[in-house]
């Protein structure tokens, strides 16, 4: 069960490992793009390409959906960012239960936005965890985890791809170990619980009075989606990549001709930006058609 890109490598790894993937559940096709055409989810498309039967129920609480799920008599269900809550009856149906891949080192960053929040908080490392699903939000016992460092130039996008890459083999190895009885679930400690709240649009506006390291983390944590933004000469511009640099000035002031911006303390260099309705561009390319003079104040 899964929906976005993050779940696709897991499905592919399960198929490659020789598992008999009898069915894939995904969110129904949604209207997307300019023509607003119905588009199947990334997992839906990948499952069809692999010749696997796909179901896209509106709600898993529907009795017919639950009966159909129980009738599969599964060994295990693998759930990765499926996008809806599974009732207890579904969690109990497979012999080994439902396993969930979550993009953090639990109990840190339970919730919707673990990748973004880890970068925004300045964490030095993060990871992925496979847990036995329970009714609570990401509260289940952890079966396995894998760690990765967060680099100074990581964005949510690059970290997402790395975590999806290590998550897929971890799910496969965990499933094998669980089936052999070679694995012990670790109950999540009460200590160290934090929540990765969904990103609210109101958080995405850059506050230049914050220190440079915080501004930089906000920019990288929200890149590429939804994208931190500020106003440049009255126009709303998304900032997609930045780096911390030396510099002093009134917060928001452009300090040179290459988008070095003063923060509450220190400065950030903006290296990739996106104007409304335009493609993302490197700073030097953007400046060619949209000059931003030193002394301009971003708000």
């Amino acid at each position: 069960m899964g929906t976005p890109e993050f779940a696709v490598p897991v499905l592919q790894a399960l198929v490659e490992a020789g598992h008999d993937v009898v069915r894939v559940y995904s969110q129904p096709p949604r209207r997307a793009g300019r023509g607003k055409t119905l588009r199947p989810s990334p997992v839906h498309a990948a499952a069809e390409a692999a010749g696997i039967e796909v179901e896209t129920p509106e709600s898993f609480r529907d009795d017919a959906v639950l009966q159909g799920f129980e009738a599969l008599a599964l060994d295990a269900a693998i759930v990765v960012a499926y996008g809806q809550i599974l009732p207890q009856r579904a969690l109990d149906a497979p012999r080994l239960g439902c396993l969930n891949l979550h993009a953090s080192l639990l109990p840190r960053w339970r919730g919707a936005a673990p990748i973004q929040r880890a970068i925004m908080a300045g964490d030095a490392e993060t990871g992925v965890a496979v847990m036995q699903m329970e009714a609570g939000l990401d509260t289940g016992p952890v079966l396995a985890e894998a760690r990765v460092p967060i680099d100074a130039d990581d964005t949510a996008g690059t970290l997402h791809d790395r975590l999806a890459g290590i998550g897929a083999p971890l799910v496969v190895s965990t499933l094998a170990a669980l089936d052999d009885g070679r694995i012990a679930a670790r109950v999540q400690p009460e200590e160290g619980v934090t929540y990765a709240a969904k990103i609210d649009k109101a958080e995405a506006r850059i506050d230049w009075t914050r220190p440079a390291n915080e501004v930089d983390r906000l920019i990288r944590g929200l890149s590429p989606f939804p994208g931190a933004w500020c106003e440049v000469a009255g126009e709303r511009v998304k900032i997609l990549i930045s780096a911390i640099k030396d510099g002093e000035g009134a917060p928001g002031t452009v300090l040179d001709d290459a988008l070095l911006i003063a923060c509450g303390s220190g400065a950030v260099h903006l290296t990739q930006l996106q104007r409304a309705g335009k493609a993302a561009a490197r700073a030097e390319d953007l400046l060619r058609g949209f000059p931003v003079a030193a002394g301009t104040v971003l708000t």
Partner: protein
Amino acid sequence: MADHRPFVPYPAPVLRTVADPVDGVTDQVRAIWDEMLRAMYAMPGVGLAAPQLGIGLRLAVLDCSDSRDQAIRLANPEILWSSDATNAFDEASPNLPGASASIERPAEVEVRFLDEAGAEQVRKFEGLWATSVQHQIDHLNGRMFFDNLSSLKRQRLLQAQKKRAKKAARG
């Protein structure tokens, strides 16, 4: 004496401002919740956020029960998770009387908040409860329900509202 402060008329700045978190659940916070509940039940409505009474704090109340006795008080609520699956309900606001629109929102949300005892709760909401809690959190972030519409539909709603207000003023 009115038993609650009046609803501030849109577009009051307090409705367009990100509200401040409360430091904890004090008697003063509890008194505001009680006032909000009186206002919500009097409307009658299924939820209310403090900025709607001109109070710039992250406080909300909900009651979507038919029996009107299942009030939930929330301080500093935040959405931890929301479903991809959506629901649509007609939404309206006492701050902009007469305007309403069908708004599509996630059908299920997990919300963290401080309850009336000041204890942290993580709670699942679905159906109308999910829509109401998201509507209230929008208020706490300076947003109105119609901000979730396309710009065309939003403009139409606000223009129709202006006409209605003019008509009412002429009597």
